[in-house]
């Protein structure tokens, strides 16, 4: 190896003298993690709450208007949850520890498993996408997505604020057009649904919502099949149930580990 001063820079080459490849130089400084004693290992329990919920239903008449069927679903409504929100949308940050002054980056690793899964979305398990459960991942910028579906996304960030290190959670539900349009392919009928009996139009194969047309259809609540009676439209005597037992909250448990680092500017 060769270490020499070229007049303005101290250079370490892999070969003899000035020969070989550059290993280090005073203007090509190495990145350094502080001593292992500065590593902080934090046993983490990370909870995400359920979403804001709504509902919708579809309703159908048979051809002569003497029978009907209906299905009701829970919907999740658009919204943003994170540490800067207030009220039910606030996801408080967790102080993981402190680091020495002067460091200028974090080396973050996580090893998490989902210990409480959200309910399935229309029969599909909500996937864990940004980690392998029970295995270590090194996180660029301390960030990882944990769950996502087309409608929503959950992520974490390990953030340095001064000398404090925080774990932050983000939960976000995509804005939606009418849920029935985006998910069911059926347009909502504008206005309140009042079935006047007999007339095939305008209620055949139409959908209603429970007060908020936005949202994503995620969970079947009830169904009233054909046969026996009519008035299965929302507000009818035989309407499907709108009681929502679904729960899309979830919990991850495991370890968040970070080590302070320093690389000269």
């Amino acid at each position, binding site marked *: 190896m060769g270490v020499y001063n070229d007049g303005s820079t101290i250079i370490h080459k892999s070969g003899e003298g000035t020969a070989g490849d550059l290993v280090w130089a005073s203007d090509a400084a*190495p990145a350094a993690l502080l001593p292992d004693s500065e590593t902080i290992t934090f046993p983490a329990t990370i909870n995400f709450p359920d979403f804001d919920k709504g509902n919708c239903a579809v309703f159908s008449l048979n051809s002569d208007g003497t029978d009907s069927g209906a299905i009701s679903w829970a919907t999740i409504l658009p919204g943003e949850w994170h540490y800067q929100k207030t009220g039910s949308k606030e996801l408080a940050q967790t102080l993981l520890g402190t680091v020495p002054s002067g460091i200028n980056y974090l080396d973050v690793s996580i090893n998490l498993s989902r210990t409480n899964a959200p309910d399935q979305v229309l029969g599909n398990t909500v996937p864990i996408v940004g980690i392998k459960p029970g295995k270590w991942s090194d996180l660029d910028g301390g960030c990882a997505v944990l769950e996502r579906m087309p409608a929503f996304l959950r992520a974490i960030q390990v953030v340095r604020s001064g000398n404090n290190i925080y774990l932050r959670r983000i939960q976000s539900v995509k804005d939606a057009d009418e849920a029935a349009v985006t998910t069911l392919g059926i347009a909502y009928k504008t206005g309140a649904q009042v079935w006047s009996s007999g007339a095939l139009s305008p209620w055949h194969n139409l959908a209603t919502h429970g007060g908020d047309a936005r949202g994503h259809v995620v969970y079947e609540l009830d169904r009233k099949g054909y046969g026996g009676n009519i008035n299965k439209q929302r507000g009818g005597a035989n309407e499907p149930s709108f009681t929502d037992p679904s729960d899309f909250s979830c919990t991850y448990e495991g370890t968040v580990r970070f080590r302070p680092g320093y690389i000269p500017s």
Partner: protein
Amino acid sequence: MPIRGIPSLNAVASFTEPSSSGGKFDPDAARNAPLKDPAGNLSNVHFHSDFDYYELAYGPATVNVNHTALSGYTGPDIGIAQLELHLEGQQDIREYTLVTHNLGYVPRYFVAYNGSRLGNGQMVQNSGGFWRIVAPFATSSIIGLREWLASGSSSLAGVTRSYEVMVFANPSQTPSLPLMGFDGSDLVLGRGRIRSSKRYLRRVKAGESSFDINRDVTMDVTNGRIKIVSGGNAYTEPGYDGSFSGPSYVAVGGGW
């Protein structure tokens, strides 16, 4: 700026003395504070054998992954007569081995994709709204890539993606080696924690490497969509409506 080693501290460092108080080889002398407590005297430390300098165990190397297709799917009716509702598409989770390192412990690693560090949960294929999202992970034997993918009524095509990988060895010391000296033709420091024949992660000029050390968070989420900014390169999913500009960063590479 001495380079000084003190056996009782089992450490050697290059540092700026914060004062001239005390003996040069007194581990408790104020002048040796950066040697004894580097974390508490970071601005005075130029090098310390207790630091971990990301010794390269593998790479940087490019690994091509042939991500396999996922067929389309049209499910049975889930509705009732005349409503004729059905679900389309399916999802799957698959894994690939990027590197077999066999170090016997879970090492640090960097994975880059498309010119910058790969985010955990980054999309590498978006075909008509059907996705392939990946996450690197490490075990004591491999660096792996886990993917979640979803198709619609038609299939998600297979694709080949190139990833760059570096794997870092944990520093270790051998008590019989000198605190600062030679082991054969190698200069060793910290009883072998640093060795001149090894390669270490270091600063490079922008554009010389796909790897960066980002100094703050690299991902933002709004509207159910993400934006990732790593090494100054932005990846923005359609629908993201935030204003995240990304962190400062230092371009780094794998020695020579």
